[in-house]
């Protein structure tokens, strides 16, 4: 039993070290290598941005829209008792921007793009394509991981902003139709209490989440073993681990923002 637990702990520690070293490799290829050698190709970053970003627009829009709707109804349920239904507007906006939109968008993108990264790189690994890159003296991290990193790093915050807007729209629909709040008043209340820091703490979170999704997707993909089954395992693991780390990071960041009064 003790040896069993010990083995799990050692395995986890080794995994964490490997993941960190992948992160440092990626950072090296992004920040240090361009001054010495070739950078990663712009067209492949662009390609990844389209894949990760544009194709997630639809699902992010709907998830956030309905989150806004539900949030408006749930807060109205509470606020009606105090006769403060108007504040639904600001509550919806603030909790979306600070918390729900960054997290939900990250979870959606982890499920969609993170798993796709793991599956694609995993397939490349088991069919010797990664090895082929190495024999051609093309570094797989520069060639495959870096474009995905950069694409996610820029696209996830953009998607989060989209999520903010569509969530507020969801709240607006509920507020103006079933709660009978005047539409001008709803928008005024929304922006009266929503501060810039609410937006940028949310965006800070989404930058961190982007790193998590890209890192785990690439790590699981590049370390895939054992044929098609291994690819399936890598894909599932990438989603599960990203989800856990996103929630964990959210918790830590929220605590930091809260205690530093941000």
């Amino acid at each position, binding site marked *: 039993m003790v040896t069993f637990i010990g083995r799990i702990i050692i395995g986890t520690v080794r995994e964490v070290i490997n993941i960190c070293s992948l992160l440092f490799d990626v950072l090296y290829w992004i920040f240090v290598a361009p001054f010495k050698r070739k950078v990663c190709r712009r067209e492949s970053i662009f390609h990844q941005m389209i894949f990760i970003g544009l194709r997630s627009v639809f699902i992010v829009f709907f998830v956030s829209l309905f989150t806004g709707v539900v949030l408006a109804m749930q807060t109205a349920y509470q606020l009606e008792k105090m006769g403060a239904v108007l504040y639904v507007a600001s509550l919806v906006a603030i909790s979306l921007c600070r918390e729900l939109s960054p997290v939900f968008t990250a979870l959606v993108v982890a499920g969609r793009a993170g798993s796709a990264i793991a599956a694609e790189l995993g397939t490349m690994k088991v*069919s*010797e394509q990664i090895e082929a890159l*190495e024999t*051609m*003296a093309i570094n797989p991290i520069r060639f495959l991981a870096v474009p995905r990193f950069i694409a996610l790093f820029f696209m996830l915050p953009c998607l989060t902003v989209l999520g903010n807007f569509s969530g507020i729209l969801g709240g607006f629909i509920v507020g103006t139709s079933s709660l009978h709040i005047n539409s001008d008043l709803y928008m005024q209340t929304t922006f009266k209490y929503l501060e810039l820091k609410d937006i940028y703490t949310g965006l800070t979170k989404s930058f961190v989440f982007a790193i998590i999704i890209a890192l785990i997707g690439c790590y699981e993909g590049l370390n895939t073993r054992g044929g098609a089954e291994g690819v399936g395992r890598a894909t599932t693991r990438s989603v599960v681990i990203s989800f856990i780390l996103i929630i964990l990071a959210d918790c830590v960041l929220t605590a930091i923002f809260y205690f530093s009064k941000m």
Partner: protein
Amino acid sequence: MSHNEHGKEIIISLKNVGKSFEGRRIINDVSLDVYCGETFVIMGCSGSGKSTLLRLMNGIIKPDKGVVSIKGKDITRLSVEGLDEVRKSFGMLFQYSALLDSLRVEENVSLPLKEHTKLDENIIRIIVKMKLSLVGMRGFEEYYPAQISGGMRKRVGLARAIALDPDIVFYDEPTSGLDPVVGGVTDKLIRDLSTKLLITSVVVTHNMQSVFKIADRIAMIHKGEVIEVGTSDQIRNSQNPYIQQFIHGSPAGPIDFFTEDAGVTEGLGL
């Protein structure tokens, strides 16, 4: 560069190379020399460690012990940059081609050129066309690897391997999984490349039909050890029972698949 006793230039040299995976010895104390310009065939049963030997030669994996030197440079001690420099001078054809799925045929072949040269787009396009016609794949530039057959993928893989005009090309089972005709064409292609372009070829195969057609010299390996090295004729006439069994593909002989798994044979009542 070093020379052997007959004055031939040695381009790849393995000395006492050993490699284990998860505690299992896969390559056991292998020493080999490959001469400049020759076609060197490594033959052996599946699982005998042929692909692993090839990986050791091109530096994808590092040996646990021993020295692998290419053109006199010990590649086990090179930095990443140094190893990449050496790698640019060789090409590799993988067993399942290992073309990048997301790139078209043309992009696959032009990839090494785009990554490692500063050539103009148009010149690269011309080189790619040249390489593709060398392997008889002109006209398939716009296809994706998934849209062409296995034999065609291998030929595209070969075009990619020779894109940078390498000195050495490694082939991992170039004819396995191909029909006899395409296999024969591939053999001829390998032969032509080495005679016309003066490329040193290292070919891993267990296909006896192609071995004697393409080889200048042959090494037979079994369970990670080199059993014999010699010219085609020497190997063909060798009295070594392992080699005779392998050449004739007879089930009875010293190469025994059941020794390690005696339990299975007993269980079957054999």
